[in-house]
């Protein structure tokens, strides 16, 4: 008879067979058998966080920077409920996570036992799928399927809930067999005819634009290479969503910058005026489209996406190619080559007027701001941070708010997987634990969390994790004492009634850093900024950098809510004439 393993051993057998190296977790009563087994599996390292939400975000940072699924281990009840925010965040941004949660023993389920909650019920709407494993016979099959569901098709989080008695029960284990494809849920569904149609449209177009998103990143680094090839071969302009930054070099001349609510003037106007819009791995999010009725009114629209339900969800498109971004892009590149179509040459005349128009928009210099000698402007701080770290293959995470947008606008990314930010859910407190996960995946790289002082306080406890594992993450706080984006909206929409958006009591971040056992740095003068940033970068250990910035700065340009792309506010002077009124006020 083959050897019998306990459920807890099976969990680790599965993790080993899935080549898992790190688990982010927090122990508790209902997962103790699994924690007891940890010591026998040296290839798997457990990272002890300080709060389960931190475990989830750290696993997200790990997954997004490495391309591998992040694994989370939490206990029942509060352990599971605490991880819900991170699961939802991962679901919105398509990050592959496998969360294993403990559950009360099967005979106690439904009795309101201590630390019991309906974990699969609670996480059903925020996971791709979840399982409650009531029988040890199903455990290994379920765990392997969990990894498959999380990583195939459009990636996302899954959860496996394991009652404590199942962790103790014994059964034999066999390695998983070569798996069949998920019944059509992850496969490509586009034909050569679609590719030919697309190329035909590209040939005819006079005002084309590529609009790329996180799907390019999720498709793997090769997809970024394919994208670069396509963009260079066609000579078309390209803009990217928040999540897609890094897929195409941010400092290239064909790149128009980020689009959307806080995107550049040239990117948004090009989206509005184009005659051919090629969406590659983006989902027409409302931050991108602005007013739907007036979104890119004169264009043929093409959508390349792995998720069929993304097609025609918000914007009706003329041609849809359902498939993995890299497969589609490779197919396009190959066809262009085999047909010897040189769009750059043949289309040069046609699109030269388009590029002229784009250059005109560019002269508006929409990311410009008035710098100051007295106060540190937050945009200036990000620019200096970029200049002083751009040669280092730096990984950036952010929290959510103004600082996030300034980071997206002013930090230029040249490689995929270097930019981790919470876009869909907009989770304040994401960046610090995400930086922990990124640093775990890339121990030798420079990892910076560009943060806001309000956001970072939500998950500040994870500094303790960073210190425990000697993770030299740098928390670069743009401290304006306000929930800046809330304050900005109150200024624009609520007659400057700054209701509860000012933090009257903030900690002394230097002392806080020291209390955690890391280094604290403070800067409040533009003249000392460079030197202090250097000091932060050179310090071998975690740093909290309190960068005191102008508290009244707003994030521009901005498409006011309910307005189309071509009605942007460029700066403070334009606010009055473009006031948000009527229906726009009710939008988020």
């Amino acid at each position, binding site marked *: 008879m083959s050897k019998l393993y306990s459920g807890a051993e099976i969990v680790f057998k599965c993790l080993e067979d899935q080549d898992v190296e790190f688990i982010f977790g927090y122990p508790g009563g209902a997962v103790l058998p699994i924690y007891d087994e940890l010591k026998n599996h040296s290839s798997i390292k457990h990272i002890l966080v300080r709060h389960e939400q931190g475990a989830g975000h750290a696993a997200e940072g790990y997954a997004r920077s490495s391309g591998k699924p992040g694994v989370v281990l939490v206990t029942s009840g509060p352990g599971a409920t605490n991880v819900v925010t991170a699961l939802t965040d991962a679901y919105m941004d398509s990050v592959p996570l496998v969360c294993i949660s403990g559950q009360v023993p099967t005979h106690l389920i439904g009795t309101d036992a201590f630390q019991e909650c309906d974990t*699969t*019920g609670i996480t*059903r*709407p925020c996971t*791709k*799928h979840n399982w*409650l494993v009531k029988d040890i016979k199903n455990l290994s099959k379920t765990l392997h399927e969990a990894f498959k*569901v999380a990583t195939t098709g459009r990636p996302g989080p899954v959860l496996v809930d394991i009652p404590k008695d199942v962790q103790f029960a014994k059964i034999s284990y066999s390695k998983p067999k070569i798996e069949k494809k*998920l*019944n059509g*849920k992850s496969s490509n569904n586009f034909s050569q005819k679609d590719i030919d149609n697309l190329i035909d449209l590209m040939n005819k177009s006079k005002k084309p634009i590529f609009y790329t998103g996180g799907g390019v990143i999720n498709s793997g680094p090769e997809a970024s290479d394919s994208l670069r090839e396509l963009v260079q071969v066609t000579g078309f302009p390209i803009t990217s969503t928040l999540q897609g930054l890094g897929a195409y070099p941010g400092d290239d001349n064909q790149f128009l910058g980020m689009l959307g609510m806080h995107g550049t003037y040239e990117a948004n106007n090009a989206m509005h005026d184009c005659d051919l819009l090629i969406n590659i791995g983006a989902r027409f999010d*409302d931050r991108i*489209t*602005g*007013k*739907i*009725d007036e979104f890119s009114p004169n264009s043929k629209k093409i959508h390349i996406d792995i*998720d*069929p*339900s993304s*097609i*025609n*969800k*918000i914007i*009706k498109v003329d041609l849809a190619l359902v498939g993995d971004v890299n497969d589609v892009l490779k197919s396009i590149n190959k066809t262009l080559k085999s047909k010897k179509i040189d769009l750059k040459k043949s289309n040069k005349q046609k699109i030269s007027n388009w590029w002229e128009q784009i250059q005109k928009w560019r002269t508006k210099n929409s990311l410009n701001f008035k710098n100051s000698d007295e106060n540190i402007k937050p945009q200036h701080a990000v620019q200096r941070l970029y200049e002083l770290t751009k040669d280092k293959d730096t990984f950036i995470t952010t929290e959510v708010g103004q600082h996030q947008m300034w980071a997206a606008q002013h930090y230029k990314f040249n490689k995929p997987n270097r930019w981790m930010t919470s876009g869909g859910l907009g989770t304040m407190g994401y960046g610090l634990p995400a930086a922990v996960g990124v640093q775990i995946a890339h121990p030798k790289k420079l990892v910076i969390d560009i943060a806001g002082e309000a956001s970072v306080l939500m998950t500040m406890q994870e500094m303790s994790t960073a210190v425990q594992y000697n993770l030299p993450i740098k928390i670069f706080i743009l401290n304006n004492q306000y929930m800046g984006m809330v304050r900005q909206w109150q200024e624009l929409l609520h007659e400057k009634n700054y209701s509860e958006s000012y933090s009257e009591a903030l900690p002394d971040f230097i002392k806080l850093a020291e209390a955690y056992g890391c280094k604290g740095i403070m800067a409040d003068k533009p003249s000392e900024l460079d030197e202090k940033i250097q000091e932060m970068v050179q310090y071998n250990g975690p740093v909290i950098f309190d960068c005191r910035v102008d508290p009244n700065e707003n994030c521009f340009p901005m498409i006011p809510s*309910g307005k189309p792309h071509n009605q942007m506010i460029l700066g403070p002077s334009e606010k009055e004439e473009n006031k948000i009124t009527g*229906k726009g006020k*009710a*939008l*988020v």
Partner: protein
Amino acid sequence: MSNPKSAYSVSTKKEKSDTHIIVVWVDNEAGVLARVVGLFSGRGYNIESLAVAEVDAKKNISRITIVTTGTPQVIDQIKLQLKKLVPVHKVADFKRNDKSVIFKEMALFKVVGNTNKIKKAINACKKYNAVILDKTKKSNVIQITALRREIDKMSKNLKKFGLVSVSRTGAVAMTRGDKVFN
């Protein structure tokens, strides 16, 4: 759109809503109905009626029939979102006025009254495959199978004949002829 899916899609164009019958084949496992129903409530789609039961005990397959109303775009989304659920095998969609599909609902009526009234009630039900399931001197339980609007009409009409209780199912559907949906 009558059912905007994003705050930004406040549209001036109004698309026509239609009633559709969505048939979903799923693994018969714990929580699968909650997944399907949760998808509808979570995304703001409405359910007019719902019928679910296992149809293949060997393969462990249940068939869920959902009647819903929406614009073509919403109906498309419903189907695509359903197909993404892991335990879902296939999804079929029929318009309610599709002549090639049979739709049926069942209802039980309890009628209490004198023989004369009960007789009238049975008579009224005759054209809807009436079956008497229970009979006493004072009461009758009548089963009919019919379309939704016919049952609506009957439950109204039978009031004057002593209708005291109505129990009805959701719609079930099947294509006519020898074709099977795949």
